[in-house]
């Protein structure tokens, strides 16, 4: 139209300054560049054709945005904006009255259309203009976004009313159709009205559900994140920071630093990779706890490998205690940094091996008065039906082998599961 490339395309507005009723006629006149009076005459003439002029006027009123004087913000909630929808509804009623006369079903349908028009108008008008732009940008389903998107409480209320009107319409429609004698068309109409009712329910409920779900989801996610963060922070504070502080203060004592670092590494590793098991219930957890205690107390590192797991009972606890004693012996007498602990759970027996590559000794020369080996290891294993063997030679390290036959019931249970 114009040669100047305007930043915005020319749009149809309802001007506020030159208006008689709502400014529709003058808006159209400006847009088409024809005299206002001609438009007004045309509208009045159209009024003669079953009120078409009125209908057109109302439609333009509803659809056209108001042109605002420069610098003035549009008032967000202008209830006058809803007026045209009422006018549309009225127009439709008038129109169907003129066209169909006194036909009952058609009369009902006319009312329905009118009410739906009003409801839809309310929904449309209450939505934010900027949001409408966003919906249009959603290529899949702009109408869905228009129904589902939620701006604030008030718009939700209006939507609720609009949807409620639709529901009521559907119900009334079903009743109105079923009241006369039931025929196939009546049933068909009933179905249609029921669908309209369902649509209304959907319109009312969808945004509510959507909003509630998304809020719940985001809240839950936030809470979980916050909890995890708090847990990590607490753990770092309780363990890592304290350990680092201790290491700074003991930085000259290499053994102490190593002990602290080892304990910290173990605890973080467990925290990161291992599900916590109660040491009083499970064999592997009990053994690993014993190894950890020895590590902390004697400042050595215990390389613990446990294959399989089983329930703890009195006998298994005795095995763990004997293994702990063997670890303590290795830590105190072998003079090495690392001790290996290997345990295996088999169908018919539990076995534990504690091995070091340290000083070693001659087992035949262990005095009877030494309780560590005789009482805590060999004696304890024998009391519980197990066996302890100590292989060592001076300069060749030591290995303590502990075996414990599985108890009768667990043996049978193991065989059953194996087959």
């Amino acid at each position, binding site marked *: 139209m114009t040669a100047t490339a305007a930043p915005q395309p020319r749009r149809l507005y309802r001007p506020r300054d030159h208006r008689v009723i709502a400014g529709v006629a003058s808006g159209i006149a400006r847009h088409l560049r024809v005299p206002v009076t001609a438009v007004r005459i045309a509208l009045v003439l159209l009024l003669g054709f079953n009120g078409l002029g009125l209908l057109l006027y109302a439609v333009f009123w509803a659809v056209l945005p108001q042109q605002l004087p420069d610098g003035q913000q549009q008032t967000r909630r202008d209830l006058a904006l809803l007026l045209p929808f009422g006018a549309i509804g009225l127009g439709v009623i008038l129109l169907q009255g003129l066209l169909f006369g006194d036909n009952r079903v058609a009369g009902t349908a006319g009312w329905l259309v009118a009410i739906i028009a009003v409801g839809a108008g309310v929904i449309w008008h209450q939505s934010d203009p900027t949001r409408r732009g966003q919906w249009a940008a959603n290529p899949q389903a702009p109408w869905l976004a228009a129904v589902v998107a939620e701006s604030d409480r008030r718009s939700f209320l209006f939507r609720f009313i609009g949807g409620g009107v639709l529901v009521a319409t559907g119900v009334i429609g079903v009743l109105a159709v079923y009241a006369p004698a039931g025929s196939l068309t009546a049933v068909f109409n009933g179905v249609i009205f029921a669908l309209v009712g369902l649509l209304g329910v959907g319109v009312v409920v969808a945004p509510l559900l959507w909003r509630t779900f998304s809020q719940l989801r985001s809240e839950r996610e936030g809470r979980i994140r916050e909890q995890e963060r708090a847990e990590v922070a607490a753990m770092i504070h309780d363990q890592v920071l304290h350990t680092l502080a201790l290491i700074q203060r003991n930085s000259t004592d290499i053994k102490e630093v190593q002990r602290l670092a080892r304990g910290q590494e173990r605890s973080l590793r467990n925290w990161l990779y291992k599900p916590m098991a109660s040491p009083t219930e499970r064999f592997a957890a009990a053994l690993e706890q014993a190894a950890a205690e020895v590590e902390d107390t004697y400042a050595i590192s215990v390389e613990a490998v446990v294959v399989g797991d089983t329930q703890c009972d009195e006998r298994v606890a005795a095995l763990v205690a004997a293994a702990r004693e063997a670890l303590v012996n290795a830590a105190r007498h072998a003079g090495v940094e690392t001790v290996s602990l290997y345990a*295996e759970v088999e169908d018919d027996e539990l076995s534990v091996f504690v091995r070091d590559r340290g000083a070693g000794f001659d087992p035949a020369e262990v005095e009877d008065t030494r309780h560590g080996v005789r009482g805590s290891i060999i004696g304890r294993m024998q009391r519980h039906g197990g066996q302890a063997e100590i292989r060592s030679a001076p300069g060749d390290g030591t290995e303590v082998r502990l075996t414990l036959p599985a108890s009768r019931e667990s043996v049978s249970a193991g065989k059953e599961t194996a087959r």
Partner: protein
Amino acid sequence: MTEPVAGETRRLTVFLVDDHAMFRAGVRAELGAHVDVIGEASSVAEAVARIAATTPDVVLLDVHMPDGGGRAVLDAMRRTHPQVKFLALSVSDAAEDVIGLIRAGARGYVTKTISPDELAAAIRRVADGDAVFSPRLAGFVLDAFASRPDVPVADPELDQLTNREREVLRLLARGYAYKEIAKELFISIKTVETHVSNVLRKLQMSNRYELSRWAADRRLV
């Protein structure tokens, strides 16, 4: 590559893949006396490109990296550069990390607490074609083969450990060195190494997908 003076004294070329620069620097400093560190990478993409360019003897591979980790490097390199050996060097000793990397084709797995001398020995062993099994890895393998006896397997012969292999693994888990295992079982060190390599091969094929690929590669199917 320089001409080998003698089989023993030729210096191995090693490539480091780890996303922590501090750790790379530390390993480089500690290994410098034993091997030639010919390159470093801090990401999967960089590692794939530079390993292909430098073709080192052994790659020290970190398990956890931001963009896919050691597994991605192995998957990318294993087919195109079968002569490059991979040794996983990680701070994690979680079973799924260890077993996962071994299945992907790493020849061994050691944790970052290993001493420099032990690491150098492990690199040499991997370069010679043997596997490096830490006691913990041996424990995981025993666990994996023991706790799932009823996993459907296409060829049971191939996917099960023999008694001898199981014995070797048990001794490894108990902290024995290869030499000590050989003495304990009255076999040669070479036999111990063969058993361990067999275990590793079985581990790499111990699921159907790997197995069928292995068969397809050898035109068995």
